């Protein structure tokens, strides 16, 4: 099958995701009036980690945890259409729909959670329980937004929604604004940056689930995170911003979206877990309800 296409997609996601991560560090530094690392610092970190040799492990689940994480990122990447009209990136676009996507996205964190659990570090397990709790929080407005656009266009597939936008000529962001707002608010939780960084909580949990990992383990987790960040942004572009015809448009749109969690994180401090959950069940859920109302009435 189209193995080459899959590899190219993966490499693109890896490079873009890593660069965005580096830019995040740079922008954060400039906001805090520091010079900050160069934007390619994440690549340096990643290759340093990849070249390191691990001396210890905590058992089979810990060893395979990062692989579970990667499965989820890569399969999600294969499902989400990267460009609208391209021979290179069709992969699994027509084989799964949005509900499938929601579930495959949770595959990785759960596998990772098992790995983190086996290390026996209490901080890891606390981070996992917080992460799962927060996920229940932000999935509600996110699913509401998705249900709203699904019933508006009578399709549950991503390609179907993109086709609907192309046909009507407007982006879903404008035709169902409430769904867009709810989804964007949910995205803040999905990225897990401050104020929703309850999982890694650097000053409290010592980076949580990742804390017993180094070398190749950490490299795999880091690259999976970068790929996943790219996939999430691309998914939002596909769903609400009409998709992208070429890579330049994709980069502009995804970067613009990426700035929302980055800038929001720089102006806020961490919530407690229950505050974070309640936050998502407040205004974001209200907008989600409005979105469903709009979809039902109009």
């Amino acid at each position: 099958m189209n193995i080459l296409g899959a590899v190219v997609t993966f490499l693109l996601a890896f490079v873009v995701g890593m660069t965005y991560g580096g830019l995040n560090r740079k922008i954060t530094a400039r906001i805090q009036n520091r010079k900050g690392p160069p934007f390619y610092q994440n690549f340096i970190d990643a290759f340093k980690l990849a070249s390191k040799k691990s001396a210890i492990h905590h058992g089979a689940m810990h060893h395979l945890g990062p692989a579970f994480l990667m499965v989820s990122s890569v399969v999600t990447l294969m499902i989400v259409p990267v460009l609208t009209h391209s021979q290179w990136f069709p992969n699994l676009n027509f084989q799964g729909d949005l509900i499938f996507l929601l579930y495959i996205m949770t595959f990785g964190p759960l596998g990772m959670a098992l790995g983190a659990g086996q290390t026996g570090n209490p901080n890891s397990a606390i981070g996992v329980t917080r992460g799962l709790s927060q996920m229940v929080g932000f999935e509600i407005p996110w699913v509401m937004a998705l249900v709203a656009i699904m019933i508006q266009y009578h399709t549950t597939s991503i390609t179907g929604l993109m086709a609907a936008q192309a046909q009507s000529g407007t982006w879903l962001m404008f035709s169902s604004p409430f769904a867009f707002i709810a989804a964007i608010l949910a995205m803040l939780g999905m990225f897990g940056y401050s104020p929703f960084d309850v999982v890694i909580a650097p000053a409290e949990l010592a980076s949580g689930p990742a804390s017993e990992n180094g070398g190749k383990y950490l490299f795999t987790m880091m690259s999976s995170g970068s790929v996943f960040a790219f996939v999430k942004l691309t998914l939002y572009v596909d769903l609400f911003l009409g998709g992208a015809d070429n890579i330049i448009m994709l980069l502009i749109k995804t970067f613009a979206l990426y700035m929302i969690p980055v800038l929001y994180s720089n102006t806020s401090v961490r919530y407690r877990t229950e505050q974070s959950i309640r936050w998502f069940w407040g205004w974001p859920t209200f907008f989600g309800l409005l979105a469903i109302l709009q979809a039902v009435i109009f």
Partner: protein
Amino acid sequence: MEMIHIIFLIFFGGAIITYFAGKVSKVLQDILFLISVLVPAYLFFAYVSMGKDVSLTLGGISLIWGVNHFSWFFSLIVLGLGSMAAIYSLGFMKGKERKGYFYFNFILSIMSMMGILLSQDLISFFIFWEIMTWTSYLITIYSGNDIQRIGIKYFVFSAIGAYAMLMAIVMVHHLSGTFLIGDMIKIYPHMSLSMQIWIPILFLMAFGVKAAMMPLHVWAPDAYSNAPMAYTSVFSGALSKMGIYGMVIILVTMTNQIPQGTWFREILAWLGGITAALGTLWAIRQDDAKKLLAYSSVAQLGYIITGIAIGTELAMLAGLFLAVMHALFKGTLFMVTGAVEKQTGTTNFNEVTGLIRKMPWTFLAALLSIIALAGIPPLGGFVGKWMLYESLITSNHYLLVILVFFSSTAAFLYCYKFLFGFFLGQEEKEWSHVKEAPAVMVVPMVLMGLFMFVLGTFPGIVLKPINNGLVDLGFVDSFKHLWNSSIILNGWGNQVVLQPILYYIIAVFVFFAIFLSWKGFRTTRYVTTKDISSSGEVPAEDENLTFSVGFMQPFLRAVAPAMRRQIDKYYTGIAEGLESLFEFMRKVYTGNGQTYAIYVFIFVVVVLLFKNVLF
């Protein structure tokens, strides 16, 4: 003699012979027990033909038994899970007291479930329903703990359900003069409106009790956790499905015929959704694995009820597919809990931790079933969940889908709690002696786990009998239209093609597993869970780093308002009120002969005084 009669004879005779064989030899008893479960199962699938009714006349009433595609599908659950649990029981019950009592009730319980499925008339349906209640009650009180509270609670609810059903049967007979289920369904649209409302409600009380539906579920957590785990896997996996079977066969086909039926369905679907949400929240709160799984069963049955109550083709497929999946994964999980209980003596998460390296096969079975429970691809649970969501969305149940989605996302929390509580976390010296469970217990668990894995990619194996059963009930054939051997579709034509997805998952996983292990796993050495970076310090041997108390505290704080009220308390209130009423009655009925003599005397005096007024 017909094959169905032979099967019931083997069940019944086997139960009695097994009970007494314990006096001769324990091994003989085990063998006889296996024979009396496995042989009828084999005979049923090999020799019983569809659509041929056999009758047996007892006291002037002919009891009619027969099998159609729909009951055949449920027999698959009962006999499949029953056989697995029977094999598991041999290991679980080894060295325990009163094996004969357990085996006797186990076999009769399987027999009564088969009886319910094969009954074509309400009389035998009711008789088998009662046998099922009795046998499950007797096994629930097997351990002898807290019989007053747990046993009686279960029995009172079952009795209320059974009398409601009996009342409905009498009403149907009075109105139509028949005991046949088929006739009852035919005559239903011609009844008066009040009967059309009351008969389904009365039946629903009976089925709702067994299917642990809100607000009739309060017996379930106690009863499920108090029965021996070998039976609880059947109790939660198969016996609760009898409620679902009843709901489908009597309610959905009956109320479908009148226009007001949609209201009935909507209420039922919402009850299912609320059951799912609240069951999940309470499951997260439990610190005992048995209780956690019991509440989780209540929640999962909620999804199934929602599915069958929506009643479109896709929703029915979803509900029944989830019923099969629930039998598989909850059966396995209760077996896992039983294995842990047998090896360590406790099922409390606060006591036992870090068993993964001691019980790897049990962990594998638990992992597979947890993934299936959470509905994550590529295991079978996903197929059921996907169909349920799609059916809710395509049938315009927008808020219900959010509720269902909430409970199934929150389910991840207790899934993780279960796995972490038993198998992950700090390894403690206290449990260093623990060994893997015996093979006779491990093999059924792992087999069921593998079957779930296969169903995740080829759901057609189970969807085919479901579809045949639904066609028997009058639904449209949905083959190729909603499902194929490994493709699932929704009403709008959107699809999930499971096979390539599985290949991708395997390919990526294998690639990165090799990447991580390359020059890695062999040369790296295993270090214990004490050798960790605890804020830069190396923790001492005796330092306690176990994390299990208050496991999901932040989440529980966030949802605290929803859990403040407890239906159990209302029932306790009612029970206390009744008790004081009975206390008053006792003042009247003192049991003292002299008091009764005074009553008689007063009565005579009253009659004499008011003779003219009264007569």
